[in-house]
């Protein structure tokens, strides 16, 4: 699959970028899951012209509008992205590959913490938010991966190469079947339950589930949502700040050629109006960049 402009994120910034990019006749692809947008479950009250109405309706209408200008929308997470000749190659959770001349990061800010008892207390003492960082510390030890989407699937698969036993705790599976098959095929054990408490003394000794079962593990990896935008940005050479924000210039450029960013990922205030404004700027500039190349 080829695109001039690929937009990572299907929230207001990404959809506005898609509208402007496709109106400029750039072949535009939007990737992500609309329901992951922060405004999806909210009621709108401070956006110009909207006195009421839901985030869900706004996004659905925006998606339709973007399609009407020719943009394609694909409800899939991006697993990796790399620089290639003439642009970038993105790998999606279904295994599909996309080649794109320009990229727009509009993934929003995702929730990383689970907020269960023991999570904060044992952070760095068995609780981790980064399997790729900490896998080496759990060689031949039992671990649990918590999360329902692609990042958990990918971490579960990774940990099977290190840990003595891998439990993948997910109430429902929201990852693509391809990712699920990869994790389970590698030997991860799916536990369809909700985590309740991280247990331990000086270090983690177990994970208690909602039904009272305790998984005896030394590591608990909390891997919610899709692969972090910070990771994907670093794949193409954009270094986020310590809070995970990507710095942009007034053109919404990131400093890396062909890579733009907009919306909450570029910093506060995390407001719909700002996201939409930046989305327009990023979409126009990404389209100009792609079409000039």
């Amino acid at each position: 699959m080829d695109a001039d402009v690929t937009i990572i994120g299907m929230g207001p910034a990404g959809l506005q970028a898609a509208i402007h990019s496709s109106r400029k006749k750039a072949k535009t692809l939007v990737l992500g899951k609309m329901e992951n947008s922060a405004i999806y479950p909210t009621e709108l009250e401070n956006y110009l012209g909207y006195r009421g109405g839901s985030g869900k309706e706004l996004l659905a209408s925006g998606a339709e509008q973007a399609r009407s200008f020719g943009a394609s929308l694909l409800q899939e997470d991006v697993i990796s992205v790399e620089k290639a000749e003439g642009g970038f190659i993105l790998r999606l959770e279904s295994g599909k590959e996309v080649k794109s001349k320009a990229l727009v990061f509009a993934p929003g800010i995702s929730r990383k913490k689970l907020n269960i008892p023991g999570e904060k207390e044992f952070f760095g003492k068995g609780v981790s938010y980064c399997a790729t960082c900490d896998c080496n510390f759990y060689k031949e030890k039992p671990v649990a991966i918590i999360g329902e989407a692609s990042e958990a699937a990918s971490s579960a698969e990774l940990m099977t190469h290190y840990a003595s036993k891998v439990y993948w705790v997910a109430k429902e599976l929201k990852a693509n079947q391809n990712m699920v098959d990869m994790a389970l095929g590698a030997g991860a054990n799916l536990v369809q339950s909700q985590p309740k408490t991280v247990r331990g003394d000086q270090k983690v000794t177990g994970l208690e589930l909602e039904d009272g079962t305790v998984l005896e593990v030394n590591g608990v990896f909390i891997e919610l949502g899709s692969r972090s935008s910070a990771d994907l940005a670093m794949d193409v050479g954009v270094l986020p700040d310590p809070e995970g924000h990507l710095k942009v210039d007034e053109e919404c450029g990131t400093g890396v050629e062909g890579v733009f960013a907009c919306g909450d990922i570029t910093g506060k205030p995390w407001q719909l109006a700002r996201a939409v404004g930046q989305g327009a700027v990023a979409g126009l500039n990404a389209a100009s960049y792609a079409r000039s190349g």
Partner: protein
Amino acid sequence: MAGKVVELSDSTFDKFVESNKVVMVDCWAAWCRPCLMLAPVVEELAEELAGKVGVAKLNVDENPGISMRFGISAIPTMLVFKDGVMKEPLVGVRPKAEIKNYLMSL
């Protein structure tokens, strides 16, 4: 070496901790993306806290002794010492102001 991040190994670690009143050691690895996000902050802290805090880094991949000794199980972890005594470490990427305030409060 004032103002620079000192690169430590398992064998130079103790001497560095002993020879500075307050010490912060960023334990990192090349394959750890959050560690790379933290690195510029650690460099800035070394400059800003020169003469007050000894700022160093240690590659846990190449120096497993220190990670085992201090029970490091997540990176980045910033080990912190005052007068040779270990204080509460900082785990994960933190904003510069938070790290600086913590070190200055010791």
